[in-house]
């Protein structure tokens, strides 16, 4: 610290004391170097804090952007505003209760969080082969519907952030059809906790398949409407083509997966490269673009929605020919209650309550043991990944042989993909920052967990 700055600080401390008591100053850095560097730079150098509360920051994302005129010279992302300690909380609940927590991470794609977590727990339990086929098909059906819903939100909010309100209204209108299906099947529009270790919470209610079948043509028409509105729209093309460029090398280095990776021309999709949940039995393509820009990502998402609807149709066909249980047979693991959807969401069915409270003491004991204590998982660790709408969603779970996860860690694609924010924005225009973030499609609930 030079003589002069010390003087300034001394005076200000003295003044402050006179005014309103002692003040604390941040110090310790070599400020001279920073001040000199700032002074030597262009005089129009401005640091702008966008967010964490900003209509186009895509959730509580803080963007620290250094500007030279309209050009971005440095861009940093600040995250953590939505950190809720989901992973820590899961260590204090049973393995089954963990679903209730992880479904809240990426709240736009909750069924992927649930399925990935359950696949990991099932791998630890060694019961992957025992999961009933019907439960697996229901999982696929729900995940693919959810993928369409998630991509619709990506396009809708992305459009809104560019100022295109109609894109938003169409996107959310179409997603509503999917949420209505989810509400009918799981009782809730989000935070379902529907997929459970061992299967799913409940079989499809009567009429669910018909509702899915009715929705598919409407969804196709709605997505077509979005395509006609966006694909060749000169404003959209002007804002998105060659903007937020990130090529294959960049994606590899930064661990970027999902539509962003596929917009560089690499057809990497875990459903094809490492199939889980029987994806090898479905016919679908992996859409790619080779433009590496925001426009390519938008088109990849559009195309993926059609592919997902193809899978949903196939899953619906399979479900009609696949009766059977939706929960693993092992009574030491299977959730004992038979659930039903009531006016307030999903809960124990009245039949089950009648059985445990009125007729069978053994059923009551069994229910009580499994629900309060939970099942034990043999010690060890597992990593299972699924292709979520944002990319590779990986779950690393460790068990110490107890009834609770010893450690659960989620490799969230939103979190990893957001690292590319700086690489995509620096050197571009301020207006393109919004496009870049929208094309990453981060969901902050997943980023921060």
């Amino acid at each position, binding site marked *: 610290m030079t003589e002069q700055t010390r003087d300034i600080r001394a005076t200000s401390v003295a003044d402050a004391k006179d005014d309103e008591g002692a003040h604390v100053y941040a110090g310790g850095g070599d400020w001279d170097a920073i001040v000199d560097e700032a002074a030597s730079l262009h005089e129009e150098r401005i640091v702008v804090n966008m967010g964490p509360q900003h209509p186009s920051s895509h959730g509580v994302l803080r963007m620290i952007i250094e500007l030279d005129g309209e050009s971005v010279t440095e861009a940093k992302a600040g995250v953590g505003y939505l*950190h809720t*300690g989901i992973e820590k909380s899961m260590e204090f609940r049973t393995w089954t209760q963990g679903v209730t927590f992880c479904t809240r991470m990426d709240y736009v794609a909750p069924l992927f969080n649930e399925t990935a977590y359950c696949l990991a727990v099932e*791998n630890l339990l060694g019961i992957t082969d025992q999961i009933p086929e019907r439960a697996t098909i229901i999982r696929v059906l729900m995940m693919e519907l959810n993928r369409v819903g998630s991509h619709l939100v990506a396009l809708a909010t992305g459009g809104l952030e560019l100022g295109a309100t109609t894109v938003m209204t169409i996107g959310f209108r179409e997603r509503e059809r999917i949420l209505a299906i989810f509400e009918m099947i799981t009782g809730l529009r989000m935070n379902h906790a529907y997929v459970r270790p061992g299967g799913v919470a409940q079989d499809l209610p009567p009429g669910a398949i018909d509702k899915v079948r009715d929705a598919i043509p409407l969804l196709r028409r709605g997505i077509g409407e979005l395509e006609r509105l966006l694909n060749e729209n000169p404003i959209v093309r002007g804002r998105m083509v060659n903007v937020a460029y990130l090529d294959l090398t960049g994606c590899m280095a930064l661990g970027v997966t999902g539509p962003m990776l596929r917009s560089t021309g690499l057809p990497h999709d875990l459903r094809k490269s490492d199939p889980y949940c029987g994806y090898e039995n479905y016919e679908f393509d992996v859409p790619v673009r080779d433009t590496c820009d925001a426009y390519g990502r938008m088109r990849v998402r559009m195309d993926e929605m059609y592919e997902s609807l193809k899978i949903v149709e196939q899953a619906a066909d399979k479900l009609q020919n696949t009766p059977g249980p939706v929960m693993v047979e092992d009574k030491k693991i299977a959730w004992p209650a038979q659930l039903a959807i009531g006016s307030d969401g999903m809960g124990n069915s009245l039949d089950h309550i009648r059985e445990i409270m009125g007729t069978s003491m053994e059923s009551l004991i069994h229910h009580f043991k499994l629900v309060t204590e939970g099942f034990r998982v043999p010690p*060890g660790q597992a990593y299972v990944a699924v292709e979520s709408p944002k990319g590779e969603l*990986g779950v690393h779970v460790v068990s110490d042989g107890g009834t609770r996860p010893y*450690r659960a*860690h989620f490799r969230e694609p939103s979190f990893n993909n957001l690292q590319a924010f700086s690489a995509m924005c620096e050197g571009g225009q301020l207006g393109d920052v919004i496009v870049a973030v929208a094309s990453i499609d981060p969901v902050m609930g997943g980023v921060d967990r």
Partner: protein
Amino acid sequence: MSRDDETPDNLPAAQGATPEPVVIDVRQGMFGASDGGDTSGFGGLVTNVLFPAAAARPYGGYFDEIADQLERALVGGSASYAQAIERVVVDRGEMTVFVAREHILGVARALRDDPALRFEMCLGVSGAHYPQETGRELHAVYHLLSITNGGRRVRLEVTCPDDDRHIPSIVEVYPANDWNERETWDFFGIVFDGHPALTRMFMPDDWQGHPQRKDYPLGGIPVEYKGATVPPPDERRKYS
């Protein structure tokens, strides 16, 4: 059963050089209750928590190939395979390679650069805290993916003692690990030496402590409902 039955003479003969499972904890009792008289007798139960033992060749699947190629790729590097690799565990169809912490960077570089290995994607690092494992309390677990070789996966595990929480950063090999290492520093207090800017990822910069360590309390609060109080989750009975 008398105590004599547990003498080593009475145990079945050891199977050649089969490695022993790793004891990571010893658990007493059954229902988590430590107060009051033990009328059930379960309080005297002593169980070892056993993690899978080191695997013996052949590992099966493509795991042998990975081990062979890694051994070859490390020749001429800073450390040989025997020096760098502590043990290999194959469990539930997944391969975990325990790497000595001073050699993690070299092993990561070999795994990325060798054409036969080519793990071009690092899917982040996840921390884990085992307070009972004296001298190796903190684990950093890396998940690697090779798209080139058809989606092969391997897991690297590095340990460090709690009183010397340093692990070399692999950001220079896998830039994707930048935020992940910051996350693991934030939550577990592992210092990744050589990381370009190791600051907290999620918690505020002036936060004290590292929340996902086992010695950091959950901080639950009791909830009152219709006159009764529900204790916070960390104070409820646990069954392990």
